[in-house]
């Protein structure tokens, strides 16, 4: 049985973490309520963004990044293999910057960002016809609407939905 009469170490740590996150959130609020994007590792952009948007690491939890990086030769139907040293470097950076906040803490189906509950909710006002436009084509094509996606900026003010 656990002793609930005194705060456990885990609870103290949790309280400290919550305090830190709250403080960070409050600071970020001061500059318009937007969390500044994590600067993207140049090597990540070079290796991953040749084929797709350099998705911010915070959009997937650690478990998803680890699975994806272990299976690069079979990456959503294509061979995205890298040499072991580069794979290790990128995995280290992705897991260090992976999403930890509540809406990203669970791995989405197939580790696809676009199947995350938060992603679906945030895009529920985008018409089905818009997704099918040649300029959009795929939910992976963030830059079709998020004009600053290549810089990790997904803020509302930089959205231009093609017609």
């Amino acid at each position, binding site marked *: 049985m656990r002793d609930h009469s005194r705060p456990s170490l885990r609870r103290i740590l949790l309280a400290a973490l919550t305090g830190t996150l709250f403080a960070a959130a409050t600071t970020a609020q001061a500059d318009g309520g937007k969390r500044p994007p994590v600067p993207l590792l140049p090597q990540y952009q070079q290796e991953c*963004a*040749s*084929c*797709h*948007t350099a998705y911010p690491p915070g959009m997937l939890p650690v478990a998803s990044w680890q699975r994806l990086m272990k299976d690069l*030769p079979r990456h*959503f*139907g*294509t*061979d*995205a*293999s*890298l*040499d072991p040293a580069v794979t290790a470097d990128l995995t280290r950076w992705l897991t260090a910057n992976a999403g930890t906040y509540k809406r990203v803490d669970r791995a989405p189906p197939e580790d696809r960002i676009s199947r995350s509950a938060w992603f679906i909710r945030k895009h529920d006002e985008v018409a089905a016809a818009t997704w099918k436009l040649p300029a*959009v*084509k*795929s939910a*992976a*094509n963030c*830059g*079709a609407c998020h004009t600053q996606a290549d810089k990790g900026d997904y803020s509302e003010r930089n959205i231009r939905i093609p017609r």
Partner: protein
Amino acid sequence: MNPTPSFSPRSFSLRAMAVAALLASTALISAAHAATPAGMLAGYTSQAGAPASAARGQQFFNRTHGKEWNCGSCHGAIPTQAGKHASTGKPIAALAPATNAERFTDTAKTEKWFRRNCNDVVGRECTAAEKADVLSWLQTLKP
């Protein structure tokens, strides 16, 4: 071994040799990055042991090889122009050296992409002869 640092002629020459080795390896690395499309074609051709054929390269590039995609699925049928990734829609800069001077100037990068993309398109790595054919066709293209 003498644990204290010394500046005897012997250790100086060791240091000089180390510096020379470092400079030489740096030169080798930059030489690897300063590859040219013509040099790469010569390399693949000599590995293949037979002359390259631009016509065969064009055909190889434009046909499918038992899988869903051909080379043009992502690079576009006209490789002097930009292509678009077949599944993500991400723009891909032109492949032909005539319109994209960065292409085929880094051996490691070229090898990495041949390895991945041949696996996607052909289901195996490409042979040196196939690479030579495609590269020789790409080098015939004008803007």
